[in-house]
């Protein structure tokens, strides 16, 4: 039988933990210095108060209570008010004197009495002890402390509180904690990490074990956002449960609709791959235009050009995006890929989508986001993003830049190709001493499509798709041969 869980209310944590923390049990939260242990604990209590009307007790052995109150204000949590309302209680166990002289045997019964009293007084269901390592530094008698803390964990269990006890670790990949506290806090263990990868900090949370209960294995990236605190990106918890639609929606180019057998599927992900200048941004602009004409809400996320550049270029193709934005159907957001981590971009995009509620989203280009992260990080990002967009039922177009002018695959495409529904290639073709642009629908999941390679013309009216280019083979392999 599985142990019931207590929903924490921490974004996506309840997903990766299959429902939250084991109810009535204590979970050990281990992490190196600066891995957001205190924040995770505080958020567990704050969410209990905000979302579930469950009160909490916060025991601090390390930081001063005033410092914690101040630090948490940045997340919009008014601890002072919660304390006054009897929803949040601090038990201050931080060091009071520089040194304590020990003469003979002692126990921590005063701490247990204070803790029990605090829990009883505000009927707390959630308890955080931060951090158990600090109490080992207060008292040099580690055997006594181990024994006493094990009594504390029994007290917590007897009082049926769901608790988090934090502990320090010295290495990111090594022993679970210092002082061997995992010897008596063995049932539930989670690890927070803060690792330097490619000159960037990557934060992850791993549920090492929940005895007698399910959870997602492995590390899940998370990020810390003002006003939201910890937001976990549930990579490995993604499920392919999105329903697929057979309803069609226009690509914004009539001929392309025909090539795709009547338009894109609603809620599908379209990848447009092409070299610089091959017409990707134009296709994305058309995709937006096709939406706004049908009174759909469209969101364009530009990672390569500024808003002004996009508006100007679109004018050259006969599209007034500025007017469309003024009408409220279009929103153009221009972002620098380097300003934040991929996790932050993901949260940011989710926020934009939740706020604007678009029917379609275009990202120009997704490959701009590969400039800094690790390959694995990017893959996780794309999986999380597509999963989110599909879940919201948003028809999406991602553009990807190829390095070779005439084609060739890129890392980006390799990562994305399998999870996109439709792939469109824009390629330069050298034909009898002339560079021509071409378009082809490489893949379209669940539909017949035109497999021919067609010429495209870009003029002041935008994109026009012409006749198939025949009599030539090897176009896509970058080695055209006239038959």
């Amino acid at each position, binding site marked *: 039988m599985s142990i019931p869980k207590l929903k924490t209310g921490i974004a996506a944590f309840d997903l990766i933990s299959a429902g939250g923390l084991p109810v009535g049990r204590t979970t050990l939260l281990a992490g190196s210095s600066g891995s957001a242990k205190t924040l995770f604990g505080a958020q567990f209590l704050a969410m209990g108060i905000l979302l579930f009307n469950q009160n909490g007790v916060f025991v601090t052995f390390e930081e001063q209570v005033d410092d914690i109150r101040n630090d948490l204000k940045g997340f919009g949590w008014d601890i002072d008010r919660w304390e006054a309302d009897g929803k949040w209680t601090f038990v201050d166990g931080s060091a009071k004197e520089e040194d304590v002289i020990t003469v*003979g045997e002692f126990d921590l019964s005063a701490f247990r009495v204070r803790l029990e009293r605090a829990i009883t007084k505000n009927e707390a269901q959630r308890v955080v002890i931060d951090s158990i390592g600090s109490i080992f530094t207060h008292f040099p008698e580690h055997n006594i402390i181990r024994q006493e803390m094990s009594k504390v964990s029994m007290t917590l269990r007897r009082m049926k509180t769901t608790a988090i006890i934090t502990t320090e670790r010295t290495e990111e990949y090594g022993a679970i904690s210092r002082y061997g506290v995992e010897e008596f806090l063995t049932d539930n263990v989670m690890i927070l990490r803060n690792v330097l990868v490619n000159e960037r900090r990557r934060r992850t949370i791993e549920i090492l074990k929940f005895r007698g209960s399910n959870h997602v294995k492995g590390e899940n990236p998370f990020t810390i956002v003002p006003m939201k605190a910890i937001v976990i990106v549930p990579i490995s918890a993604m499920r392919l449960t999105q329903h697929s639609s057979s309803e069609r929606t226009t690509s914004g180019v009539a001929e392309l609709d025909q090539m795709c057998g009547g338009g894109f599927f609603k809620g599908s992900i379209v990848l447009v791959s092409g070299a610089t200048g091959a017409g990707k941004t134009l296709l994305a602009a058309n995709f937006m235009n096709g939406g706004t004409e049908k009174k759909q809400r469209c969101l364009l996320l530009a990672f390569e050009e500024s808003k002004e550049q996009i508006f100007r270029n679109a004018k050259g193709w006969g599209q007034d995006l500025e007017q469309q934005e003024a009408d409220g159907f279009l929103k153009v957001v221009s972002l620098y890929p380097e300003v934040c981590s991929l996790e932050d971009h993901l949260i940011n995009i989710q926020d934009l989508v939740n706020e604007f509620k678009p029917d379609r989203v275009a990202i120009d280009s997704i490959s701009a986001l590969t400039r800094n992260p690790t390959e694995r990080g990017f893959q996780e990002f794309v999986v999380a993003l597509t999963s989110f967009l599909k879940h919201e039922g948003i028809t999406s177009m991602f553009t990807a830049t190829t390095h070779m002018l005439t084609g060739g695959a890129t890392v980006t495409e390799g990562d994305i190709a399998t999870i996109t529904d439709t792939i469109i290639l824009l390629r330069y073709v050298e034909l009898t001493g002339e560079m021509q642009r071409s378009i082809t629908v490489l893949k379209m999941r669940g539909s017949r499509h035109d497999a021919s390679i067609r010429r495209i013309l870009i003029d002041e009216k935008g994109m026009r798709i012409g006749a198939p280019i025949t009599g030539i083979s090897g176009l896509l392999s970058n080695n055209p041969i006239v038959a």
Partner: protein
Amino acid sequence: MTNYWIQLFINRNSATSVGAEENLNAILKKYFPGDYQLEIIDIQEDPDKAEEAGILAIPTLIRKWPQPEVRLIGALTVQTRVLAGLGIANVDHLQKQGDK
């Protein structure tokens, strides 16, 4: 006028506390006759005071006066260490006085 104000936080349910109270009484009677004020606080009866003073360990002795505050924890089993902890520099001198 008393020169020492001492608080001892104990827990009546624990054996170490009883020992500490006895040990402290013996030391005070011997070295500070009539010169101290001792306040015994049982955390089971008076948890507010334990909360206020931020007590974790039992027994905890606090020398409130003279300033600065000094804290000792444990059953106070070693007299010389308790005296040193209370800030009695010349233990030998006191020892002689006590023997008189």
